[in-house]
C-alpha cells in the first residue's frame, strides 16, 4: 500500500460521499454549482483588510456541511496537500506591508498581517465550498449540469477527462512504484537516476491509458452528452436554496454582522 494508493482511495471516496443522500445531495446540481459560484465570487469581493467582514462567511458552508452530513474536518484531511499552497499565497504580505494598524499588548498588528489572514481565509473558504460541491454532487452530475447550462461540450468533456485522468495517473504511479520497489528492495522512494525514465514512462503510460478509456467511452456511445447522469428539472426547493444562498451571501457581504455582534458586547 503506497501513498498513491491512499490518494486513489480518497478520490474514490469522493464518489462515495456523492452517493450519500441528504437534502443537499438531492438539490439540482446546476443550482448547487450556481450557488457555489455566487459564494466564491462574494468571498473574493471582500476587501483585502476586511477580515472581520469575511469571518461570518464561514457560517454558510459550515451549516451546509452539517446539513449534508459531511464532516468539515474531512475536507481538510482530504485537501491536506492543497492546503499549504492556499496558505502560502499570502505569506509574503507581512514583509511587504509593514504599516502598523493596531497593538495588542506587546504585539503590533501590521496591515500585511491582516491582509495575509484575509487571503488565507478566502482560500480556505473557496476550498470548503468547492469540496462541498464535489462531495455532494459527483463529477458526472456536475458535468451534466454544466451541459444543461449550455457550457460547450468540449469544455465539459475536458473537465471530465481531466478528472478521470487524475485517477488514471495516480493508478499508474501506484503500479509503477510498486513494480519498482519490488525489484529494488531496501530502497526508499525512487533513485534519482531513475527519475527521468520513470516520469517519461508515467507520461506515456497514463496517456495511453487515458486514450484507451476515452476510446471505450466512444464505443459505448459517448458523444459529449450525459444521459446517464440522470438530470431532472429544477424544482421549487432548488430555487428556494439558491435564493437563500444568495441572500446569505449578500447579507454577510453588506451587513457588517461581526461588528454589530461585537458592539452588542462592548
Amino acid at each position, binding site marked *: 500500500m503506497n501513498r498513491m494508493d491512499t490518494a486513489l482511495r480518497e478520490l*474514490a471516496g469522493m464518489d462515495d460521499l456523492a452517493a450519500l443522500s441528504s437534502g443537499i445531495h438531492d438539490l439540482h446540481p446546476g443550482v448547487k454549482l450556481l450557488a457555489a459560484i455566487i459564494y466564491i465570487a462574494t468571498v473574493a469581493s471582500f476587501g483585502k483588510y476586511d477580515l472581520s467582514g469575511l469571518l461570518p462567511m464561514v457560517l454558510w458552508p459550515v451549516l451546509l456541511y452539517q446539513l449534508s452530513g459531511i464532516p468539515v474536518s474531512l475536507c481538510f484531511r482530504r485537501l491536506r496537500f492543497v492546503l499549504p499552497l492556499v496558505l502560502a499565497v499570502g505569506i509574503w504580505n507581512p514583509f511587504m506591508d509593514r504599516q502598523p494598524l493596531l497593538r495588542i499588548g506587546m504585539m503590533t498588528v501590521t496591515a500585511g498581517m491582516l491582509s495575509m489572514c484575509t487571503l488565507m481565509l478566502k482560500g480556505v473558504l473557496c476550498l470548503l465550498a468547492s469540496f462541498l460541491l464535489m462531495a455532494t454532487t459527483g463529477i458526472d452530475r456536475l458535468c451534466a449540469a454544466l451541459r444543461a447550462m449550455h457550457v460547450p461540450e468540449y469544455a465539459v468533456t475536458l473537465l471530465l477527462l481531466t478528472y478521470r485522468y487524475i485517477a488514471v495517473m495516480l493508478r499508474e504511479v501506484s503500479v509503477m512504484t510498486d513494480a519498482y520497489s519490488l525489484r529494488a528492495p531496501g530502497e526508499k522512494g525512487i533513485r534519482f537516476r531513475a527519475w527521468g525514465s520513470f516520469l517519461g514512462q508515467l507520461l506515456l503510460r497514463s496517456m495511453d491509458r487515458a486514450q484507451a478509456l476515452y476510446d471505450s467511452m*466512444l*464505443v*459505448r456511445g459517448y458523444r459529449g452528452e450525459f444521459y446517464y447522469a440522470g438530470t431532472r428539472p429544477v424544482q421549487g426547493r432548488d430555487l428556494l436554496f439558491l435564493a437563500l444562498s444568495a441572500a446569505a451571501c449578500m447579507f454577510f457581504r453588506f451587513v457588517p454582522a461581526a461588528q454589530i455582534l461585537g458592539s452588542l458586547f462592548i
Partner: protein
Amino acid sequence: MIEFAHVSCAYEKDRPVLRDVSFSVQEGETVGLIGCNGAGKSTVMKLLLGLLPCSDGKITAAGLPVDKAHLAEIRAKIGVVLQDPETQMFMPTVYEDMLFGPMNYGLSREEADRRIDAALEQLQIGHLKHRHNHRISGGEKRMAAIAVILAMQPDILLMDEPTAALDPYNRRKVIEVIRNLPGTKMITSHDLDMICETCERVILLCDGAVCADGPAEQVLRDRELLEAHRLELPLRYAHIR
C-alpha cells in the same frame, strides 16, 4: 455482417501489423479468431470499431463501411469486451458503468435497469453491482466488463480474451452465455477449448495474415497446423495423433 477486404494496417510506419487480411462473417455466425501473441487479433477488433485507421483495404461492419461518417451508427450495433478490462471500465461503480452505454443510446432508465439486472443475473454476479470498479479483483472485473457489454444487447459481439483470468466456474458461465446469446459473435482467445465449445468457425491469424479459415472441427484438430503457429491442440482433441 463483417467483412475485411485486403486490409493492411500499421501502428508505426514500415512495421505492418496486418497484411492483406480478407475474411467475412455472416449474420448469426460465431467465429473464433486465434493466433499467437502479437499475431494481430486485438488489432482486428480495433479496426472494426474504427479505433485505428487501416492503411489499405476496406472494412465493412453491420453492412456499413467503417469510416467517419458511419462510426456512430456502427458502434451502436457493436459491443466489445476489451482485452484489458482496466481500460474498459471508467465509471466509479459497476452499476454506473453498466448504465453508461444503454443511456447513451437513449433507453429509459427503467429499461436500462431491467437489462442491467438481466445481465448480472445471466453471469450470476449480482453481488458486484454496487461495488467500486477498482476495489474488485481481476477476474471479477472481467466478469463485470462482460456484463457491461451484455447490458447493451448489441447485434454484433466482439470479445477479446473473455475467459482470461476467470476461475473454472465463471469460465463455464461465460461459455454458456456466449452459446445462448443470439447475434453475430467474434471471439479471440488462447483458450482453444472455449473456442471449440462456442464457435462453429475459426480463423487463424499469424504474423498479420490469415493462414487458416474453416470449420472449428477441422482447424482445431489439425495438430501440425496449430503447432506450426505456436498453438496446441485443445484438450478435447489431445488424443489425436
